């Protein structure tokens, strides 16, 4: 076990996950003169056409010291303000941005819940600038003189996977990352303590490094950790297809509930990339294709089905190997993409960068923090598979007929929200508070009781205040350009 410092890192994987890891490490470790090698395996599974990135996109560009505009331009990107959901006749929006406007006071959401109890024709979406903009296919980035809108219009992007990979690969190469291509790894050599010393590629080429990052997906070629199945994850198959479209579409990913799962649509310029997540115990490829033919008139030959090797490892950093993305935490890709997980893990790794090759306490701490992240992510994903029941009393409750699917802690969280409209603080930032509010309210869990925080606000003042906010939001959105106009203005397309 070495107490030497890390002088070289080797990353093993494919596609945009590999290039993302290489880019982040080469940007953050450049002063340390650490040699970074990227072993690019041949692709073993279909690559989605598009990848969505949330508000973590801008901080990532800062880390990489690149212009966000340049990245979007070179990757055929569009913008997104969150996610639209359609299920059983209902529609709701889960924004990246905060509800209300900057001058809205604390406990704004509680005030809105109280208001909505008196105005059942309205929803939480009426108080989200992002939701109103997305529904009308509008988009804008607030100028510096509109600091009141900065957090309300927090945004992410949808990028072409292929072009993003190309961009990141070129970027990391320009920063000294050496790429080696191969079909597969033929051998992993370890010392007696289990530390990886080298890998041999199928070409016979041997790569040595002090530290390893495995982003090879479900293959997990470095076999550093083991995934266990999770009850949270229901959809074990995904079908990919695309269709052409005239414009840039709505500034959001769109989720539509089907009998077997969810259909996710992401717009790029002139095409829409679809991913249909389904539970193979409830249907099969043929039925899914029949559905898609009927709904989209798409040829079954153009639909690619693949299996999701769902599962989670508790120890993602073992000895001198960090397994990221599907190699350790395959959460299905629908809500949390593999790329999002890789980005979060690698940035967290840089923050915990070990002084020496053998740093078991750093690894333990990293794993603990990562598990908080994954737990929060799984709880959020669970909401997508729960079937709210409207009871005789009209009160919506979560279907608790499947024991083991949600933890007691999450069950309490849901109950607290239903009773008081409150969220407790979590240890990770996997899911933003506004995303919780949007999703919990959207699936039909409406807080039943007024919060103490607003109990001393006269109802007339509450009503007047919220109506003013609602009107202000409508006015703001009315002045925004369409998503198409904005993209054209920025990129001249």
């Amino acid at each position, binding site marked *: 076990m070495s107490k030497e*410092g*890390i002088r070289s890192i080797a990353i093993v994987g494919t596609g945009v996950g590999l290039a993302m890891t290489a880019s982040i490490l080469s940007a953050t*470790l450049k*002063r*340390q*003169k650490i040699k970074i090698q990227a072993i690019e395996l041949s692709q073993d599974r279909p690559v989605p056409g598009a990848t969505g990135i949330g508000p973590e996109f801008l901080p990532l560009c800062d880390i990489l010291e690149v212009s966000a505009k340049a990245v979007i331009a070179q990757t055929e990107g569009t913008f997104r303000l969150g996610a639209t959901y359609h299920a059983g006749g209902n529609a709701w929006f889960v924004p990246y941005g905060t509800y209300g406007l900057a001058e809205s006071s604390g406990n704004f959401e509680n005030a809105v819940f109280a208001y909505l109890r008196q105005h059942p024709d309205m929803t939480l979406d009426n108080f989200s600038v992002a939701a109103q903009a997305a529904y009308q296919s509008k988009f804008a980035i607030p100028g510096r003189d509109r600091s009141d809108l900065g957090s309300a219009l927090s945004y992410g992007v949808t990028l072409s996977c292929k072009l993003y990979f190309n961009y990141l690969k070129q970027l990391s190469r320009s920063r000294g990352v050496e790429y080696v291509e191969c079909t597969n790894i033929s051998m992993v050599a370890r010392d007696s303590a289990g530390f990886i010393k080298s890998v041999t590629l199928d070409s016979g080429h041997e790569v040595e490094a002090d530290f390893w990052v495995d982003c090879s997906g479900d293959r997990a070629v470095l076999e550093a950790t083991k995934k266990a199945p999770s009850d949270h994850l229901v959809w074990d198959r995904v079908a990919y297809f695309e269709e052409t479209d005239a414009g840039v579409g709505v500034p959001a990913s769109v989720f539509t509930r089907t009998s077997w799962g969810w259909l996710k649509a992401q717009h790029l310029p002139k095409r829409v990339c679809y991913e249909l997540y389904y539970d193979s115990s409830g249907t099969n490829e043929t039925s899914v294709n029949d559905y898609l033919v009927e709904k989209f008139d798409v040829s079954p030959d153009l639909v690619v089905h693949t299996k999701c090797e769902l599962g989670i490892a508790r120890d993602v950093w073992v000895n001198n190997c960090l397994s990221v993305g599907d190699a350790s935490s395959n959460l299905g890709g629908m809500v949390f993409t593999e790329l999002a997980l890789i980005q979060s893990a690698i940035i967290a790794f840089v923050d*915990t*960068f*070990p*002084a*020496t090759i053998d*740093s*078991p*306490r*750093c690894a*333990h*701490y990293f794993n*603990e923090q990562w598990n908080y992240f994954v737990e929060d992510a799984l709880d959020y994903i669970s909401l997508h598979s729960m079937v709210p029941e409207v009871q005789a009393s009209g009160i919506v409750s979560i279907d608790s007929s499947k024991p083991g699917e949600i933890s007691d*802690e999450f069950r*309490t*969280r849901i*109950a*607290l929200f*239903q*009773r*008081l409209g*409150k969220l*407790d*603080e*979590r*240890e990770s930032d996997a899911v933003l508070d506004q995303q919780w509010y949007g999703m919990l309210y959207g699936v039909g869990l409406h807080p*039943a*009781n007024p*919060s*103490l*925080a607003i*109990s*001393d606000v006269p109802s007339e003042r509450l009503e007047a205040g919220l109506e003013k906010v609602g009107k202000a939001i409508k006015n703001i959105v009315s002045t925004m350009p369409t998503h198409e106009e904005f993209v054209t203005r920025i990129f001249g397309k």
Partner: protein
Amino acid sequence: MTLKKIVILGGGTAGWMTAAALSRYLPAKGISLEVVESEAIGTVGVGEATIPHLRQFNQMLGIDENEFMRITGATYKLGIELTGWGAVNSSYIHPFGGCGHDIAGIDFHHYWLRLKAEGLVGSFDDYSMAVQAAKHNKFQYPSDDPDSLYSDYGYAFHIDATLYANFLKTYALARGVVRSEGKVINVRSSENDGGIEALLLESGHCVEGDLFIDCSGFRGLLIEDTLKTGYESWQHWLPCDRAFAVPSEKMASPPPYTRAAAKQVGWQWRIPLQHRTGNGYVYASEFISDEEAEAVLLAGLEEPATAEPRQLRFVAGKRKKSWNNNCVAVGLSAGFLEPLESTSIYLIQVAIQKFLEFFPADLDCSAERDMFNRHMDIEYERVRDFLILHYKATTRRDSGFWNYCREMAVPSPLQEKIALFMESGRTALYRKGLFMPASWLAVYFGQGVMPEDYDRRVDAPPLEVIRRYVDKYKAEIDLAASKMQTHVDAIQRSQSADSVAYPQASFSLYGIRG
């Protein structure tokens, strides 16, 4: 079942803080409040050092800080001086603020560790604005300009807790809280669910309520005697089980910090107020007799005592649930952790604020109760672990007490934190609970705990560049601290007609950067 009336059992700091806070918010909901207290039962009342969060509590209640200082005889507090905790002759200040600033995204202390390895820097707390001010008996309100050196700290107070409780009593009574005088001789419980229905007083008066807040002190008349909640002892980690407290004359020039001086067994506190000084000696009866302990306390006074020492006995630990059935324990009835880091009033405050945050919609409130208990468990455990660190991180070998502390096993979360720090110089970061990395670093470095390594990314810049940067920073801090007014002047100014507006409070130990 709707909640119409809350009964608070016990006066003192816990009872009246609770009553005052609830009276601020509950009348709008039509909920009535009644406090049951007995003048025959004394309160612990040893004089209190506080942490910056109390400012936020007062602000929440709309209390003017200058009036608060006048009424409670308060002095300012920038931190705690801990002497003799590492080695016998060690001394450091745990400040309400950070040391240094991160550079290129890497925490300052890694740079300090690199320079320290080369013998190029002095103490870690040389880079703390709050420490430099405290050492020179200076005080100034922190700035809310994030670019100013004066924004790098927060502040709290030393107060007479009895006077504070009385002040809050007046506040609460003026807002409609009813007070009943009397001793509880019996508690009526529900036959259905075992919840508390009423308190029967010695006078024959029966006080009914829907929800009860137990501020009855160590005994936990409701939460323990009635509901048999259970207590989790932490005495194997915090072996002190007794204390003597005694007031002494006021200091001519009170310092803006509390002192916690480690002794051969336990430690002695000194809390400077405007009108007197509060003193106490916390000790483990297994290692020293009561008579010897009293002698240690009196020998350690710097001003003449003004009363006889009073003894307290306690068991470090917490109630297994702070909220059980329809009873919420606040203060000593919820648990006890020695006042080494002035957390007693904080734990009262956080219980009240969490109770308000999760205020039950009605009495069928298992979700609110579970969430409250979860939060309070974390709060107590985080404070506990930080206190244990002070004992564990000693190099003293001059008594059986310190040998025990040095060699004792510690809770696994703390063990992991210490191991992480020793391996890499990193401090674990968490969102819930008190004491962020700045505090842990103060104790580690203050008590001479040096990690085996540091973030090697700081090896990249030339040593001379880092040294010049750090030296310049120290010079700036020293200059800024020298320009502050004296602590005595600051206290006088707070009470004068031309007092300066005090800054907004935040729920943080470290000022606006927290």
